[in-house]
């Protein structure tokens, strides 16, 4: 089928585009920079541009929407216009263009507000309680997309959790960079149990959602490796794979949260080019359990992860060795 992928220049978007091509689809990719994915027709521009959006959905059957402002800090208006406004433009355009499937790529943070999550499913997105501009606007966007689910347009929301892998600039590079500078602490001893998603698994999961839209539409699904690990184990594993010394010091999560909150506030007054070292959101992510019930995901999407965490770390090490 003809499929439009937005945000294909990103780490996950590129993997999804490649996976769609591999599955034999005719793939268009819309984003501001070239996607770099082989076998894909690029349309350059922003999801906030109505005419461009109109053009890009023309004749497509499926849409996979990944484009978003993903950041831990920044201008709230920009989060809103890209994440909420972009989704609205795209889903309405897809509807008008007669597309039949729409996969909204979302985040588990849309439904949860910082408390420990152990084995929970994908609860309804909750913009009111979501933490930070990213999670809040993604929550609104997911609700908006699912509102458009109908007999003609099948909408599925998927929420990959903590995607990582070779070439990841969001998570892996930040961890490795901070560890290298000695600025990566373990919060509360690093014992919080965290589920994560190796990039290939996230990509196959998203494509599975497109394929199974008929069965799974109207719902949201969390996608993970289904291999929770203490965050300390995970950070150490990533550091070792990347060849840097793992974190050696531990700070209480409460202190980190307070510090993160203060930094976040300062940052929003003086936005710079770099991320703040530890925002409140990240402190919560790394100090409270986040692992999920994958039974419904695996059943409804007829999908299982193919790359284990250990295999993922091996691939990361191999990539770091060649990079």
């Amino acid at each position, binding site marked *: 089928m003809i499929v439009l992928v937005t945000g294909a220049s990103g780490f996950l978007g590129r993997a999804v585009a490649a996976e769609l091509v591999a599955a034999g689809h005719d793939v268009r990719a819309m984003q501001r920079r070239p996607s770099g994915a082989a076998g894909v027709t690029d349309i350059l521009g922003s999801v906030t541009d109505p005419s461009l959006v109109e053009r890009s959905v023309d004749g497509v059957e499926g849409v996979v929407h990944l484009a978003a402002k993903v950041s831990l800090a920044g201008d709230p208006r920009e989060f809103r216009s890209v994440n909420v406004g972009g989704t609205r433009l795209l889903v309405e355009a897809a509807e008008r263009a007669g597309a039949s499937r729409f996969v909204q790529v979302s985040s588990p943070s849309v439904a949860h507000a910082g408390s420990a999550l152990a084995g929970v499913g994908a609860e309804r997105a909750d913009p009111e309680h979501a933490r930070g501009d990213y999670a809040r606007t993604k929550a609104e966007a997911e609700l908006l997309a699912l509102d458009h689910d109908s007999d003609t347009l099948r909408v599925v929301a998927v929420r990959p959790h903590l995607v990582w892998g070779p070439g990841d600039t969001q998570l892996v590079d930040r961890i490795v960079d901070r560890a290298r500078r000695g600025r990566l602490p373990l919060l509360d*001893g690093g014992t919080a149990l965290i589920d994560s998603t190796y990039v290939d698994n996230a990509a196959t999961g998203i494509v599975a959602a497109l394929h199974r839209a008929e069965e799974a539409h109207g719902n949201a699904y969390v996608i993970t490796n289904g291999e929770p690990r203490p965050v300390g*184990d995970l950070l150490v594993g990533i550091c070792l794979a990347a060849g840097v010394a793992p974190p050696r010091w531990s700070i209480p999560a409460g202190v980190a949260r307070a510090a993160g909150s203060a930094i976040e506030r300062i940052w929003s007054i003086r936005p710079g080019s770099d991320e703040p070292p530890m925002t409140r959101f990240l402190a919560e992510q790394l100090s409270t359990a986040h692992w999920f019930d994958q039974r419904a995901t695996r059943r409804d999407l007829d999908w299982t992860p193919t790359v284990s965490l250990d295999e993922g770390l091996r691939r990361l090490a191999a990539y770091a060795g060649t990079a």
Partner: protein
Amino acid sequence: MVTEGASLPPSGLPGLDPRFSRILRVPGRGVDAGVSREWHHLDTGDELARLGIPTAGTILAVHGNPTWSYLWRSIVSESVRAAESGRPAWRVVAVDQLDMGFSERTGVHRPLHQRVSDLAAFTEALALEGPVVTLGHDWGGVVSLGWAVDHGTSLAGVMLLNTAIHHPEGVPIPAPLRLAGAWGVLAASTVGTTAFLDTTLALATPSLDRDVADAYRAPYRTAERRRAIGGFVADIPVDARHESFGELDRIAGAVARLDVPALMLWGPNDPIFSDRYLDDLADRLPHADVHRFEGASHLVAEDRPYADAVLTWLEDNGERLSGLAPSPPRAAASARRTSTGSPDGPPFVPLWRGLDERREDDSVAVVDMAPRGKSEPRRVSWRQLDDRVRKLAAGLHRMGVRKGQRVSLLVQPGPTLTAVVYACLRIGAVVVVADAGLGVKGLTRAVRGAWPHVVIGEALGLTAARTLGWPGLRISTARLPRVAAVALGVECSLADVIELGTGAPVPAPPGPGDEAAILFTSGSTGPAKGVVYRHGQLSALRDVLAAHFDVTSETGLVTGFAPFALLGPALGTRSVTPDMDVSAPRTLTASAVAAAVRESDARIVFLSPAAILNVVATADALTTTDRAALTHVRTFLSTGAPIGEQLLASAAALMPNATPHTPYGMTECLLVTDVTLDGIRAAAAAPDRGVCVGTPIGSNRVLVAALDADGRPTAAPSDEAGVLGELVVSAPHLKDHYDRLWLTDRAAENGTPSGNRGAAAGERWHRTGDVGHLDADGRVWVEGRLPHVIVTADGPVAPVGAEQDVEGVEGVRRAAVVGVGPHGLRQAVAVVETVPPTSRPGLATPELTAAVRASTALPLVAVLAVPQLPTDIRHNSKIDRSRVSMWAESTLAGGKTGAL
């Protein structure tokens, strides 16, 4: 006096369905002769008729003071639900007694006999026909029993929640009531204010929701409407001069003649109707099914799911209650699970027969290697022991101790304990053995629950009994100075009992179906439970032990392990307690074992793993003579808790001619299977997961109830090999039942051949709570406890196999594998003790984590290291996995890593 007709309760009271409220005008009796009274009551009869469901009978429910029929809202609604779902339909009629609830305020004083005839008038006006099962709580229990004894033709059964029908003379009435009953206080607390009402409602554990408490208060808003609450309190017969004493006495006497099925559901924390009254009722209705809900209080109907229990009991007893089957003779009910009277079995040989047979024998029967305060061993001959037992038995009998009464023993093992135990057994007194391994709190709960009539103890035990308020007449082992005796509330010493029994006749002995002993479970999985053995079962234990380990009169036993230490005389062979503190097994040394063996030329040595650990550790001190003595030992047993092959082998090396055994059993069935050291070594080559405990002893049987995907042992027990499930056992010496834990008892047999009534006559089965499997050679493998099974998304996993894998990793001393996360989605975590021990709990090192993960096929989400894993008090070896699991849950949720 203000009078006021009956009314309907206000709408919207939580849990109360207004459809069932009725008002009935009833022609009065007694003081009400010639007038009629209006009764508010709940009645499900019309609803069941509307649904077209025929009823099995009627539950006549009577509330106490100061409640009303609201108390019974659960049984009202749940009985209708049960009927709709096809279970037996019982109509419920729950009255508000006159002057109570929403019934008429008569303004007339209504002592007990009036209330009993009020209820009779009510049921006559309602044209209530049998079968009727009464249900009463508090003083409603007394009124309901009054109705029961007067309506023999329609009465099918009686059910009671915390109540009392008798007050023993010389015992002050419970303090809160004494206070409420004092005249001055009476008017103030029960009528003028809502204090009595508030106090009663505050007894609910956990506390009542506000709207439920308000519903209880609804009919008692004004002092006028509360007048009867005071009337009830004043009606408590404090002594024989009270106007209601005669009626209470009449009912109490007649209850003891009831032969209908009886159920008692009890909240033991009730400050008023304590276990004392339960014990009195149990004496009057010995065939009753009794369940004490540990932790529940006076308002047990609010504290626990009593309606479930009531409906289950009605269903279990359906045929007898609805008149389809004739009532078997009295006492048959309590013996229905008992095999011991079976005419086909071997003839019953009582435990004391071994003593009888050697009564003229002057050789040594029992030796205590280190009697307190003496340097020489204390030796007691068969003749002396038999004489002591007879005199104690006769003396206790003369003191009024009777068959079925309970005697709690707080005495260290040795000749004194042995004599007392056999004296009690001889007269049919039930020996209650609670050990220090339960801890003070557990021991107190155990002794209170068993409600002994007599406590026999050493000064230390009696001090505890006094301080902790344990019940029972107190007898000291040694003669105490007068002042001390008074301080401890001690009536007399054993010497006095012997004196009293000298020349007195010994009463007729108990039979195989009479209760003999109550032992307590270790309490490592919830509060310790009392396990009741009958004489036939103890005799069977003796016989299976003698047959399996080939014990003859010449064998000789050395034993530092409590239940087995007492069996020497029953086995007809001499027994020796080595020099040790029996409550602390680790005080036993190798030299002390050798000395005991030398003293008695014993062929069998019984020890617990904790004792063995120290025996092995102190082996260097053995002399040549010691070692020579130990070569005479032919059988060596480690009992009470699992033991590692290494430790067993080390101990075996000290007794080179002995075959080391380690039987598997539990308080409920002391010997289930047995395996020798060679057997353990042979099993090591098998691919099976878990600990191999060998094959069933004698005629014992072990089956497995397979676990379903949800981790519940729902399958019918089978002998199929390789299936993980709960181990279900049958043995001639299996326990009879749990003490006053009818629901627990039922659960322990549910789904087994005897629970399904599919067992051969007399066969009894027990769910062990252990999980494991059988192999093709019939060997039993234990893989953990049922509550410790980890129910993952891929199905249930037992912990022991993975623990063994992990314990094989270099640097791991001991491991617990536990689950975290929601049921059905649990993730396995290994929590380990390391070598050297870690100083702080937290993540294991990356290297150890990797090694532990690699050691087992079970996916482990985390590996945590702790300085020490928590274990039980009694054996110091059973890891408390439930506690480890809760700790891991909170640690891995990202909370601070606290101490375990």
